[in-house]
């Protein structure tokens, strides 16, 4: 049994303002029964990690389309480690070329959802991988 609802922070780092995807995912996760906090636009990695800590989230979903992912994502993962928050699931959606996926996963990103991914795939991934997932479902 799940003790509490999965808490997700949807974050939009960088200078880009295209928030169609972030808002659709936030709403789809809410409709799937999760508690979702959306940071709003242009959050620095420090602001995102602070919000994740304060809100005690299980998952951080990051939307990034501008091409700045190789700079921004490893920094968020490093800050999470520095806070001892390694068990927070970090997932990313946006324009991430195939070539960058391996290094981002090595940096600590659990999964990357490229253009065309469905909200159902994202929901399923969170349910089976977040720390509030039913025992045994995590891998």
């Amino acid at each position: 049994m799940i003790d509490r609802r999965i808490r997700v922070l949807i974050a939009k780092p960088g200078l880009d303002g295209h928030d169609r995807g972030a808002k659709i995912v936030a709403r789809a996760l809410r409709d799937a029964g999760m508690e979702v906090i959306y940071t709003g636009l242009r959050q620095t990695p420090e602001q995102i990690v602070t919000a994740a800590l304060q809100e005690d989230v299980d998952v951080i979903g990051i939307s990034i389309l501008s091409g700045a992912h190789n700079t921004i994502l490893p920094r968020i993962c490093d800050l999470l480690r520095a806070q001892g928050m390694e068990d927070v699931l970090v997932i990313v959606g946006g324009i991430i070329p195939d070539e960058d996926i391996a290094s981002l996963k090595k940096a600590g990103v659990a999964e990357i959802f490229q253009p065309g991914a469905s909200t159902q795939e994202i929901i399923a991934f969170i349910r089976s991988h977040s720390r509030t997932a039913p025992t045994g479902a995590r891998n």
Partner: protein
Amino acid sequence: MPFGLPLMSAKNKAGSAVATNAPSRQPSPAELRWQKGILEPALKNAPERLAVFTTLSGVTVERLYTPADLSDFDYARDLGEPGEFPFTRGIHRTMYRGKLWTMRQFSGFGTPEDTNRRLHYLLKQGQTGLSIAFDLPTLMGYDSDHPLAEGEVGKCGVAISSLADMETLLAGLPLEDVSTSMTINSPAAIIWAMYLVVAEKNGASWKKITGTTQNDILKEYIAQKEYIFPPAPSMRLVVDSITFAAREVPRWNPISISGYHIREAGSTAVQELAFTLRDGIEYVEWVRRAGMKVDDFAPRLSFFFNAHNDLFEEIAKYRAARKIWAHVMRDRFGAEDARSWLCRFHTQTAGCSLTAQQPYNNVVRTTIQALAAVLGGTQSLHTNSLDEAWALPTEGAATLALRTQQVLAHESGVTKSVDPLAGSYFLERLTLDTERACLDYFDRIDALGGMVAAIEIGYPQKEIHEAAYAHQQAVERKEKIIVGVNEFEEADERTIPLLVIDESVAQRQREKLAALRRQRDGRKVQETLEALGSAASTDKNLMPYILECVRAYATVGEMCDTLRRVFGTYEEPPFR
């Protein structure tokens, strides 16, 4: 329809001469005979694929349109002749028989040197106008060496921090002969001032140069979200540039009122049209309040629309746009100069329709979309490249996109007759219905107190999000098919070459900026920035002050910081 629009509007403040209610449909005896005797038995044997057919935006499409669907249609009132009020058929008498649309490929990446080379290349390939994309730090008013610029320099467009960068960007380009469009909004007045100073230094007369600054801040709050300052001071910057253009740079379009980004954010076709034209109304009201007569600036207002996949829905949108704007300007604002009535527009094919999967399919999508824009009478066109779901285009992909336009222009034959689809029962019905739905939105936004007030309570933002979410759900339920994404998928896809912008661009820009800060006259920079700050707290036109800062090689970031101190910055209402 997902957006729940009543198609009938009892009255509208645009004063448009449309019938207040579409009459009930009365089929002819021949049509009735066909329905009963032929169609109904046939449907029993072979039912249709779907119970309801809808456009991409969710508007119901009937099986057949006949004269019975156009009993409220009047040729002279609803269409008129080409180049005549209400311009439904086009703003020119001969349209593309006289002059083809301007082929204007949006381009910008990396350093000013990189983009300068691409601009020269595109002109050599037969492109007829320039269009410059700026990177996110520039769009947000930060220099390349600002901490928030890290990872973003040169990625989504060219990095421009000072006049020196603009001089490099425009080196060797014939500024009096080529028109230049610049996609810049919050810092539009600053980037435009840089262009003007480069023109001045190259001996190109401000009276002769042509081009467009996008400068449409309202759609930033609504859709693209690249805003810096709150709405009122932002609108003041727009008004200042429109009035300055009217006096000093008479052939410049000081604003391109844009639906493109509204559509990309997930709106329907009607929302794109309605919010864009209502933004136009808002700008006219603000400039008039600043003391200008409508005919002194309205002829230079220009528009920018999206071209999405649904061919007829898009063509109807462009035709309705011209008709509605003509009525707005003549009837709502009392414009007398016929040039004030014209909805002149640029079109770009829909970036949001491109798929990362099977990217070569994007060439086909772009062709259909470009065809819609041409059949809808656009004045200029950008066709997206097949690789743009992944990155900014490579030179090869950008060339193919330009060739797509050239094939349409010179081989397809669609340019030979003006507004060739006019009179189509389906298209004319769709055009009338699109107009009515748009006017209904005008009424709602007027009732909220205008577009700035509507934005501040998040009204258009919410409407767009609802449409975007409904579309996403329809795709996930396979009610809308996207080839290669939710149907006809391939396990092993061909990969395509992508343009990669590495961090060496940022390094080069930072070095150039450091050298500039050492070499320029620091005292002059301080003086001009202080003068700008002082003028910002009065109601003086800021363009002359910005021009002085630019001439002193003050940077985009320094000018924007000066204005941030006076104007403050904007945070949007939270999304719940």
